[in-house]
C-alpha cells in the first residue's frame, strides 16, 4: 500500500473512533458538560490533560525547533514541562477543592467582583482563540501535505469532527476522546523515534540513544554533531548562544504561562477528589514527559541524518523525499556555484529567508526562486516542521509509519482545539450569561446556551484556520505572556494570601496585562525593526517578558492591597476552606 492509502486508512479509522466515543458519552447536564460530572479517574485525566496540552506545535514543530536551535531550544522543553510542577503544587489541588466550573468563576468569587470575572473572561477567550486558530491551521496543513486536499477542506473536516464531540459531549465527550487521542499521538510519535534510534544509535530507547557512542565510532553522536556544526559554520549544538538572563526569563515565563492556561487548569476540575487532582497532575506530566524527552532525541537524529543525506551531494542523487518536500515549499535549493551539489552551511541561503517559488526549473531540475541569493555559501532552505513530518522518510521507514505521523499530528491538533473551545463556550454560557446577564437561566437553558456557544466557537475557529491572521506565531507568545502576567498571579495570591483583596488583584491583573501586551505589541507589531537585544529592556525578549509582567502584577497587587480594606469575612473563610483537604 502507498503512503496516501495508508494515511487515509489510519486517519479515517482514528476519526471514526473519536466519533463513536463522542456518541457514547453525551452530556445531559451542565455539570457533565462543564466538568464531566467530576467522575474522571486520575489516570484517564492525566492522559486527557497530556493530549489537551500537547498541540500541533508540540507534535509537529517542537522537535524541529530544537533540531535547528540545539541547546537554545531547551527553553521550550523545560518551560512547557516545569509548569506542571507549579500547577500540581500551587494551583490544581486548591482549585479542585473550590470545585466550580471555570477559571473566571474562581477569580470572580474569590475577589467578590464581577469586574474581576469580566477581566478574566476576556483574557480566557482571547488566549483560547489565539491558540485555537493555530490548531485548526495545523489540521488543514496535515491534510494538505499527506492527503493532497485543499487546506480549507482539511480545516472543514477537522471542524466537523470537533463539532460532533464538543457540542454533543462537552467536557465529558472531550475527556474520553482526548484519552484516545493521547494514545494515537504518543504511538505515532514514538514509533518513528524508536525505529530511528535503533537505526542510528543501536538502542530502542531514544532518550539513551542520542547520547550514545554508536558502535564502530569513537565519538558520541552529540560530539559528532557538534563537529559537523563547527565544520559547516553553524553555531554549536550542545551549548547556548543567547544571553543567560533572557533564557531564564523565557523559561520562567513559559513555566508560569503553562500553569496559567485556562484549558489546562479546568481539566483538574473533572476528577473526584483533591487527592485525585494531585495524582492526575503527576500522571499528566509523566505522559507529557514521554514525548518531551523523546523530542530532543528526534531532533539530534534528524539533524544528523539531514546533514549526512544532503551535504555536498548531487541534487539528482539525493533520495525522493527531498524533491517531494521541495514540491510542497518546505525545502528550497539554490545552486549558487552551479556545480549541481547541495551545500548546507550556516547562515540564511535566501533573502528574504522564506523561499518564493517561480514556475520554472533550473539546470538540475530544481525549482527556481524569486529570492535574491545571500553572499554566504549556504544553498539550502529547510523548514523546521520537516524534522517531524519528513523524518520517517529521511530515515527510509515503511509507509505505514509515515502515515502514522499524519494521524498523530491530527490527534494532537484536534484534542487541543477541543479543550480550548470548551473554555470559550463555558466562559460565555456560564460566566457571561448565567453569572452576569441572565441569572435566572435554568440548567437546561444554560446547557443549550453552552452547546450553541461551543458550536459558534468551532465556526469562528474554523474561519481563523482558513484565513489565519498573519501573526499566528507572534500570537502564541502572547497567550503565554498574558497567562503568566494575569491568571497565574491572580489565582496564586487568591490561594496563598488570605488578605489579598479585590482592589489589589484587579489592579495587579490590569498592570500585568497592559505592560506585557504593550511590550509585545511594541516589538512585534509596531516596531519589528527594533526587535533585537540592543533595544530590549534588560535584554529580555517578547517571549520572556511575561516574567516581568508577573513581577509587576505581584508588586502592584501588594502595594494596592496595603491601603485598601481587607476582603470580607466570608471570602477569608472560603480561602481557609480551600487550603484543607476536605
Amino acid at each position, binding site marked *: 500500500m502507498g503512503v496516501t492509502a495508508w494515511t487515509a486508512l489510519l486517519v479515517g479509522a482514528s476519526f471514526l473512533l473519536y466519533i463513536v466515543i463522542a456518541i457514547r458519552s453525551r452530556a445531559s447536564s451542565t455539570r457533565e458538560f462543564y466538568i464531566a460530572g467530576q467522575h474522571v479517574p486520575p489516570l484517564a485525566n492525566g492522559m486527557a490533560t497530556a493530549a489537551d496540552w500537547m498541540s500541533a506545535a508540540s507534535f509537529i514543530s517542537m522537535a524541529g525547533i*530544537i533540531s535547528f536551535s540545539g*541547546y537554545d531550544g*531547551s527553553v521550550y*522543553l*523545560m518551560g512547557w*514541562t*516545569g509548569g*506542571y*510542577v*507549579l500547577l*500540581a*503544587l*500551587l494551583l490544581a*489541588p486548591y482549585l479542585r477543592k473550590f470545585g466550580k466550573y471555570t477559571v473566571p468563576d474562581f477569580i470572580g468569587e474569590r475577589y467578590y467582583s464581577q469586574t474581576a470575572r469580566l477581566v478574566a473572561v476576556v483574557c480566557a477567550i482571547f488566549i483560547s482563540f489565539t491558540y485555537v486558530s493555530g490548531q485548526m491551521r495545523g489540521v488543514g496543513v496535515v491534510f494538505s501535505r499527506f492527503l493532497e486536499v485543499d487546506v480549507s477542506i482539511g480545516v472543514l473536516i477537522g471542524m466537523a469532527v470537533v463539532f460532533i464531540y464538543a457540542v454533543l459531549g462537552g467536557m465529558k465527550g472531550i475527556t474520553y476522546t482526548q484519552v484516545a487521542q493521547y494514545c494515537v499521538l504518543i504511538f505515532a510519535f514514538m514509533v518513528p523515534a524508536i525505529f530511528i534510534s535503533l537505526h542510528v544509535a543501536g538502542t530502542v530507547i531514544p*532518550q*539513551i540513544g542520542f*547520547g*550514545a*557512542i554508536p558502535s564502530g565510532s569513537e*565519538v*558520541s*553522536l*552529540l*560530539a559528532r554533531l557538534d563537529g559537523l556544526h563547527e565544520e559547516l559554520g553553524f553555531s554549536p549544538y*550542545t*551549548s*547556548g548562544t543567547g544571553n*543567560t538572563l533572557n*533564557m*531564564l526569563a523565557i*523559561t*520562567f515565563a513559559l*513555566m508560569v504561562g503553562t500553569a496559567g492556561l485556562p484549558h489546562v487548569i479546568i481539566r483538574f476540575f473533572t476528577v473526584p477528589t483533591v*487527592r485525585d487532582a*494531585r*495524582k492526575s*497532575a*503527576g500522571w499528566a*506530566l*509523566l505522559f507529557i*514527559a514521554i514525548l*518531551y*524527552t523523546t523530542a*530532543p532525541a528526534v531532533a539530534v537524529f534528524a539533524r544528523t541524518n539531514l546533514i549526512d543525506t544532503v551535504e555536498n551531494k548531487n541534487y539528482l542523487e539525493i533520495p525522493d523525499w527531498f524533491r517531494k518536500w521541495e514540491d510542497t515549499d518546505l525545502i528550497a535549493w539554490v545552486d549558487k556555484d552551479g556545480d549541481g551539489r547541495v551545500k548546507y552551511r550556516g547562515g540564511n541561503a535566501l533573502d528574504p529567508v522564506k523561499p518564493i517559488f517561480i514556475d520554472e526549473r533550473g539546470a538540475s531540475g530544481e525549482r527556481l526562486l524569486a529570492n535574491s541569493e545571500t553572499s554566504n555559501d549556504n544553498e539550502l532552505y529547510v523548514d523546521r516542521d520537516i524534522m517531524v513530518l519528513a523524518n520517517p522518510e529521511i530515515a527510509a521507514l515503511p509507509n505505514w509509519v509515515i502515515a502514522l505521523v499524519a494521524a498523530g499530528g491530527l490527534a494532537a491538533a484536534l484534542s487541543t482545539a477541543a479543550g480550548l473551545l470548551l473554555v470559550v463556550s463555558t466562559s460565555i454560557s456560564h460566566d457571561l450569561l448565567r453569572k452576569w446577564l441572565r441569572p435566572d437561566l435554568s440548567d437546561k437553558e444554560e446547557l443549550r446556551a453552552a452547546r450553541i456557544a461551543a458550536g459558534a466557537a468551532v465556526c469562528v475557529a474554523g474561519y481563523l484556520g482558513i484565513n489565519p491572521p498573519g501573526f499566528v506565531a507572534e500570537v502564541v507568545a502572547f497567550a503565554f505572556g498574558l497567562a503568566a502576567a494575569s491568571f497565574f498571579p491572580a489565582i496564586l495570591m487568591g490561594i496563598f494570601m488570605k488578605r489579598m483583596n479585590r482592589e489589589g488583584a484587579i489592579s495587579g491583573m490590569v498592570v500585568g496585562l497592559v505592560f506585557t501586551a504593550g511590550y509585545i505589541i511594541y516589538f512585534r507589531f509596531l516596531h519589528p525593526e527594533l526587535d533585537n537585544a540592543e533595544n530590549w529592556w534588560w535584554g529580555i525578549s517578547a517571549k520572556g517578558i511575561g516574567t516581568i509582567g508577573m513581577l509587576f502584577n505581584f508588586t502592584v497587587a501588594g502595594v494596592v492591597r496595603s491601603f485598601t480594606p481587607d476582603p470580607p469575612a466570608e471570602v477569608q473563610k472560603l480561602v*481557609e476552606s480551600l*487550603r*484543607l*483537604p*476536605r
Partner: protein
Amino acid sequence: MGSDRDSARRYWHSNLRIIAILLSIWALVSLGFGIVLAPFLDQFTLPGTGFPLGFWFAQQGSIFTFVILIFVYVRWMNRLDDEYCSDEEDE
C-alpha cells in the same frame, strides 16, 4: 474548636514547607543546572554516555526530576492528609 484551628494551621504550615523544599529542587535542576550552571557543567559528561552534563539537565534531567517531584508531593501530601484527618477525629 481551638484545637481544630490549630491542626488546620499545622497542616497548612507543613504543606508550605513541602512546597518550599520541592520548588527549590525544581528551580535548581532547571534554572540552575539547566541554564545558569550549564556552561560549567558541560565540561563533564554524564557517566557512561556522551551527554555534556549541562545540556543533559536542560533537555532530559530536569524533565525526569519534575515528574519525580510531583509524585513525591503526592505521597507526602497523602500522608499529611491522613495525619490531619485522624487529628480531627481525635478531637
